[in-house]
């Protein structure tokens, strides 16, 4: 008990030192999980900072739904969005919508539209140049006579109202091999001849880099995707007008160059600095975070996430386990519920929690707490159940009060099982905590997500390797702890059995 209290105290101390994402004076900018969005978010942050406003940028929080919910709930005040996505996905308008129609509907929800930044990043379909030339495909209509092409589009594009299904209906396509592949991985698949066709954003740096051919949208299927910033109407006026200065300053060529710079350097702040001129770009180069700094920072964030959520899970899980052990009926309910939440996919759980807890550390901690409960509760119950009944009765017959029986006899005897449960939770927790990178809670997941969005293995490893190391260290740490916590007599007895 004393040990779990100590863990909790450490957790609280770490939590109070963690940066708050929703400070009263701070303007929060969010971005989606792809390079261009990251870069635009960084530009916005810098514009705001230069205007004397304290700004944070939560990078790569997820897809449209997560960003839109975060904006509506007030977790973020700004994020870059595209006109086509606003009309098709957010407002679900039919047909081509003009700006004033979108503006009035957004206003009703307390959201405003900033000026267009100047480039149109529409969807397009791309193929390898060799394949397109060999098959004589130049426009999307040409695809009709090639149903055997292998298609790999993002899961989001598969589901979008302006995505793959309506597109195939419009162009009369009948491809059978259609798969959902993450964006950066899709480019890799296309380059290595695993797929023949994928969707792209017209400003993607990979198009030029991989020598891909953009097919002509000859029926004018794709809506316009003009970039702009969505913002909360209650955001500080100074911030809104500062960002409005971005209007018309970024054309396709400029955006594509910044995207390419970001993918080459793996540093969004650096790429965004190019917007502010060559001198700014050069200065930023000197300030670029070193790998050691990144690992130290993400390790600290990761420890906060794991420490607090595991600490809370221990504090809640052991009493829940005791409760479940005391009453069969309560036990069935507790174990049922705890088991049920375990089956919710972690990404879905994070999304469910956004309306209540917003994005960032709190949300991630609650989700990790929930996932850590099951092994602790279950092992507490098992540990107590495994105590032979003559010994339970002996404890009772001595005349010890129920609480003293639990403290002096039952919990020490169940300690090995409980500790094993905590160990399992810790290892699962360390791995699962990498998903916190999806909702801007930092930790090792941040590097993994950045690496995935760039399809850059070294960056992925910068998150994955420390995470694996932490899991191994935790495992070893618990093995040592076992010697300290599990009473010697019990260890001797177990060894003999």
């Amino acid at each position, binding site marked *: 008990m004393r040990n779990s209290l100590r863990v909790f105290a450490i957790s609280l101390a770490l939590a109070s030192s963690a940066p708050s994402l929703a400070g009263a004076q701070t303007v929060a900018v969010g971005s989606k999980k792809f390079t261009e969005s990251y870069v635009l978010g960084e530009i916005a942050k810098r514009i705001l900072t230069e205007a004397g406003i304290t700004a944070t940028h939560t990078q790569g929080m997820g897809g449209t739904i997560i960003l839109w919910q975060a904006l509506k709930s007030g977790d973020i005040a700004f994020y870059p969005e595209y006109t086509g996505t606003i009309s098709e996905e957010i407002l679900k308008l039919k047909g081509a919508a003009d700006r004033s129609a979108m503006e009035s509907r957004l206003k009703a929800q307390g959201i405003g539209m900033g000026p267009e930044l100047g480039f149109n990043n529409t969807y397009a379909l791309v193929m390898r140049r060799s394949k397109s030339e060999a098959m004589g495909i130049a426009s999307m209509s040409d695809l009709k006579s090639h149903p055997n092409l292998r298609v790999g589009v993002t899961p989001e594009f598969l589901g979008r109202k302006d995505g793959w299904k309506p597109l195939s209906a419009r162009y009369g396509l009948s491809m059978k091999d259609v798969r959902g592949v993450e964006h950066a991985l899709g480019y890799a698949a296309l380059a290595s001849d695993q797929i023949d066709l994928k969707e792209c954003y017209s400003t993607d740096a990979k198009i030029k880099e991989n020598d891909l051919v953009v097919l002509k949208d000859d029926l004018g299927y794709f809506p316009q995707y003009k970039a702009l910033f969505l913002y909360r109407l209650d955001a500080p006026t100074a911030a809104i007008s500062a960002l409005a200065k971005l209007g018309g300053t970024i054309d396709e060529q400029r955006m594509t160059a910044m995207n390419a710079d970001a993918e080459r350097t793996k540093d969004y702040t650096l790429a965004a600095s190019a917007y502010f001129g060559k001198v700014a770009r050069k200065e930023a180069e000197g300030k670029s975070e070193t790998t050691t700094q990144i690992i130290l920072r993400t390790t600290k964030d990761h420890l906060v996430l794991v420490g607090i959520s595991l600490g809370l899970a221990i504090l809640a899980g052991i009493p829940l386990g005791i409760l479940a052990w005391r009453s069969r009926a309560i036990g069935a309910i507790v174990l049922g519920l705890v088991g049920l939440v375990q089956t919710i996919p972690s990404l879905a759980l994070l999304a469910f929690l956004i309306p209540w807890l917003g994005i960032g550390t709190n949300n991630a901690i609650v989700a990790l707490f929930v996932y850590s409960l099951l092994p602790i509760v279950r092992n507490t119950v098992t540990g107590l159940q495994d105590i032979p009944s003559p*010994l339970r009765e*002996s404890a009772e017959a*001595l*005349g010890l009060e129920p609480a003293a029986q639990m403290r*002096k006899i039952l919990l020490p*005897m169940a300690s090995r099982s409980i500790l094993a449960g905590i160990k399992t939770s810790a290892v699962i927790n360390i791995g699962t905590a990498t998903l916190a990178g999806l909702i801007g809670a930092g930790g090792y997941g941040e590097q993994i997500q950045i690496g995935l969005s760039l399809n850059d293995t070294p960056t992925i490893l910068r998150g994955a390797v420390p995470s694996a190391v932490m899991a191994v260290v935790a495992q070893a740490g618990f093995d040592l702890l076992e010697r300290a916590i599990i009473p010697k*007599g019990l260890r*001797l*007895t177990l060894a003999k059995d």
Partner: protein
Amino acid sequence: MIALKSAERRYGASIAVYPTTLEFERGKTTALIGPSGCGKSTLLRMIIGLIAPSSGTLEVDGTPVNTFTSQQLRRRMGYVIQDGGLFPHLTALRNITLMAQHVGTDPAKVSSRVAELCTLTHFPQEALGRFPVELSGGQRQRVSLMRGLMLDPDILLLDEPLGALDPLVRSALQKDLRSVFEALGKTVVLVTHDMAEAGYLGHRLVLMREGRVVQSGSLEDFQKRPSDAFVTEFLTAQRSLVML
């Protein structure tokens, strides 16, 4: 004095102990005997309050045993079970002194009491630091007896205390138990299925069969004035075993 007044214990439709009225004399050793499943252990577990009577009452020195009183009453009782029931995570010494420390007994008093009990039960003091798993079966029973006697209870309850021991150790412990009982003069209730052990240790024997008391009295009463054929049958069967 322990008194059962029409105490009955049912488990659903089956009856473990039929309404029984019985008194256990202060300062004497009573042996509850009978074949497996006759209800003798259930009776003992009712006295210490591990299970409550389904109907009727059970009193210890005039206090009815129930959920409110059993905790305090237990501290005036020592309880020794087959195999000792020692807690594996505590040393012999901690097992013996757990309750004394819990109620805040003066440490000096605790250690002099432990030394006294070691002499009484013939347990080597230097083995007090060992864990139960490091002790022999006989030693574990001696530790269990010391634990039961630590707070100097009025009543000592023993449930088949020697059941798991081999015959030589068993015989040595029987002798020691008798001398302890004689020396302390406590109210002792001993559950056993061994007639010879019951006769050797008990002032009074209570024979049970299928939840009912068949006869109670001295060994001589059993031998000379059996109340029914079962008593004779039980005695004969046991004696033939002893004779072999």
